[in-house]
């Protein structure tokens, strides 16, 4: 069997395969480190009972929904007070409440967001805490 222009086709296939697989080849063996968000801010260490507004598992999975609910409640309904399950009272504020404890945005927010390649636009307007 004769393949017309066989040489050209094979060269083409080799070039295509090397380009198509290059992202995988380049990154082989260089697994991205698992995100490791930190909770070691001075404000959190001062707390007697280390407790967020909701349980940790809920916050891990649903913090984006909670933040959206807070946003709608504060901006559109004018209600700025959040009551936790145990009756704790919180001021619903990203800049004022969340970031007061989690003052390490780089190691707390960005760590996971970078890993999963999401780009929330919170910080286009809200001012992140000062970090060194």
């Amino acid at each position, binding site marked *: 069997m004769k393949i017309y222009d066989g040489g050209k086709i094979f060269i083409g296939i080799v070039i295509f395969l090397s380009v198509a697989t290059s992202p995988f080849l380049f990154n082989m063996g260089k697994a991205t480190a698992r995100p490791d968000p930190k909770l070691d801010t001075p404000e959190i260490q001062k707390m007697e009972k280390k407790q967020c507004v909701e349980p940790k598992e809920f916050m891990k999975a649903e913090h984006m929904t909670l933040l959206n609910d807070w*946003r709608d409640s504060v*901006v*559109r309904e*004018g209600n*700025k*007070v959040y*009551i936790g399950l145990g009756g704790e*009272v919180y001021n619903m504020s990203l*800049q*004022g409440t969340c970031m007061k404890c989690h003052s390490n945005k780089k190691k707390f927010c960005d760590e996971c967001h970078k890993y999963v390649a999401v780009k929330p*636009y919170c910080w*286009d*307007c*809200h*001012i992140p805490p000062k970090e060194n």
Partner: protein
Amino acid sequence: MSMNRRKFLKLTAVTTIATAGGISALELFRDSKLEAQEILPLEVKPLTAKRWAMVVDIRKFKKEDDYKKIIDACHRAHNVPDIGNPKDEIKWIWTDTFEHAFPGQEHKYMPENLKQIPFLLLCNHCDNPPCVRVCPTKATFKRNDGIVMMDMHRCIGCRFCMAACPFGARSFNWRDPRPFIKELNTKFPTRTKGVVEKCNFCEERLAGGLMPACVEESKRGLIFGDLEDPNSDVRKVLSSHYTIRRKSELGTGPGVYYII
């Protein structure tokens, strides 16, 4: 189970009464819970009203500096950038001449000083705000207390509201405002490129129990209060002085009054 007509009607009546009673009891419970929320140990008591309004007493403003202090206080509190060219200008509160503020009311023979002095202008927080009507995303909306407010999360930057507002109270962020803010107020957000912004009657300060920044800075030149409360400061001033509003003939019902 067999049931005759009489029994059925009796049962229906009893069920209706029981349900109604249950619901009203529930509502009572809900009301008391609401009350409990309000008296929870919050740090501050928010200022509330049925209809917020402002009176600008032009007689209290003598020098250019009197205005500048107020404008600076507002713009500092809300991270309003100073971009430095009129095309990109962002303003929440500003000044203009009588002729421009109250078009059609001026005439050749009016007092010379009125022709000269600047008038303090801001969003009028109208009763019937055209900006709210045209907003396609409901980013601009009117709160129950009369404040015409913006939800920056929803603004898509279409600028219909700017075209609709007859007072020029709205500014568009043509560029990222952050580099143009001299000192950041970290208690308030900035805006981003591509959204419209305007005065919010210091909604965030009212919620914190404070009067608006401009009112605080003006030393009685600006009077702020509840239009629906006959004993409020604004009502007292309005009932004892002749006041005018900007372009009231348009029917938007401006909430900012001027004593000339």
